[in-house]
């Protein structure tokens, strides 16, 4: 290794100078001013990095959308928002009130009487007994008695004359 080569900047020192954006010791600066080899090595590395950066910029498509600042909220907008807030709160409160009223009303409509106990309880009511009797006997007893008395007065021969018995072949 010659004395000149020994004094060249090492690969690591060249790397460090490039990484630190040209920051270097006075001795390094002095050497670079005198040594073409080191200066070429340094500039070759810097050039490659710069080429890479430029090509990266060129290889980046232009954006089609740009950032747009959100619209500023005016005082009017704030008031309008507050009104909408109150309206929404009012609506929620109304719905809650209606729900409570319906729920309470529904409970009061059937105060503890179950459907199975209702007919048993009412059968002791005289009016209900009468109604049940009427339902079972479609005609009142007085009317039935009358019809029975009328039936007793008809002559059997007269009835047979009116409605001939089926086994009678006199008509054939």
């Amino acid at each position, binding site marked *: 290794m010659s004395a000149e080569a020994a004094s060249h900047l090492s690969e690591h020192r060249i790397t460090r100078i490039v*990484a630190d954006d040209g920051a270097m010791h006075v001795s390094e600066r002095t050497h670079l001013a005198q040594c073409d080899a080191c200066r070429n090595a340094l500039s070759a590395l810097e050039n490659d990095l710069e080429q890479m950066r430029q090509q990266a910029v060129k290889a980046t498509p232009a954006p089609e959308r740009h*950032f747009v600042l959100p619209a500023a909220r005016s005082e009017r907008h704030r008031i309008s928002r507050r009104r909408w807030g109150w309206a929404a709160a009012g609506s929620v409160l109304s719905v809650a009130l209606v729900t409570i009223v319906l729920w309470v009303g529904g409970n009061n409509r059937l105060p503890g009487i179950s459907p199975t106990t209702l007919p048993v309880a009412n059968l002791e009511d005289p009016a209900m007994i009468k109604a049940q009797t009427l339902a079972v006997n479609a005609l009142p007893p007085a009317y039935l008695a009358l019809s029975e008395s009328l039936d007793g007065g008809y002559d059997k021969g007269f009835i047979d004359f009116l409605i001939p018995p089926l086994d009678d072949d006199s008509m054939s």
Partner: protein
Amino acid sequence: MVATLSPPPHDRDTDVSQLAAAARDGNRFAFQQLVTLMEPKIYRMIFYRTRSREDAEDICQDVFLKAFRSLKKLQQPERFESWLYRIAVNRVTDYHRRQKFRSLFSVLNDNDKEDDAQAEPPGERDTGPIDAIVRKEFWQKVQTMLGQLSKMEQEVFILRFLDELGIKEIAEVLHKSESTVKTHLYRALGKFKTDTAFRAFIKEAQP
């Protein structure tokens, strides 16, 4: 804090930190200027990591929206840029996490990816198909080169040499010490140096 629409009280050449301070104080015009300044960088930064225009656009929207909503929490406006990059890095990490989850349903996903690739290769809408092929090849080569690096080396390398952040900014973005960042960066750069195939490809592609 009152939101205003008037221009911030400074010249057009004022740097990002002053705009960030004005935006933090409710100046929407200042924030819009910050978006104009930073959106191309942030969009590219996201695209480098997603390789999808649509996804990059979506994430970019998210990043600026998050920045706009959280700007009041920013204590040091001079760190706005690294703060924004940090939001972007986190969003990209979330994106990759979701992608990994989706890859569990690989059969369905592969079909979707094929359809997407056929429907819209990167940048084909604004250039010809040859450009699209060149771009695709470029990103494949980059991916191969980055494949030799660890996750942290990749992140540091891309932030330094593609996103052009300084070591201090990278340390802020990644919440690491500067010496840690340098260690990873030296290793990454060492691997880049020895990847002669990739360096030759870069030189060939040089106009």
